[in-house]
């Protein structure tokens, strides 16, 4: 297997990065990001927010009361 100059350089850079990366946890001020335990939920009904529902609740009750023949 022949290796080109750039290939060798890439490998060398990769190796150095690996050393830096493995050395990272030992350094202070290192930011660690963990994957969440729970699955990420994406609510598709973002156009109906709870605060909007709470704001409209009184008017909805009034509408139902005043038009009880269709509710």
């Amino acid at each position, binding site marked *: 297997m022949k290796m080109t100059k750039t290939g060798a350089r890439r490998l060398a850079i990769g190796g150095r990065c690996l050393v830096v990366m493995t050395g990272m946890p030992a350094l202070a001020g290192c930011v660690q990001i963990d994957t969440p335990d729970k699955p990420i939920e994406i609510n598709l009904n973002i*156009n*109906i*927010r*709870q605060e*909007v*529902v*709470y*704001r*409209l*609740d009184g*008017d*909805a*009750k009034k*509408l*139902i009361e005043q*038009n*009880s*023949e*269709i*509710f």
Partner: protein
Amino acid sequence: MGKNGMRMKMWKPTGLALAAIAATAAVALSVPSAMAQRDPAYAAARAAGQIGEQPDGYLGFATTPTPAIRALVQDINIKRKAAYTASAQSTGSTVEQFAFTSGCNLIANTKPGEKYQTPGGVWKTRDASPPERDARCP
């Protein structure tokens, strides 16, 4: 004695007037409730569990509907949408937002034996316990 007689005479018309007011009030109270009654076919389909309330604020079919029930539900849903549209405009919200908020209330108002749809889309029969509603419902 004479004074008492006078008082009796004075009270009589007042009593009659009170009775008349009471009668008028009774009529006035009974008229709106008679106007706001559900169509008998609608009430029957609801009670039979053929149709029920959906979380989106409209009626849906819990079982395959007859053409008559389908037409009835479509008619009511059109009227509901018109009412939601007017209220959405006056409250500065969208028709979907107002309809959804109404759906929260309509499912909460279902009587035991009536059908409602859960947020997951399953038709359930209302019992004495609180109905299964969307987490955003008040």
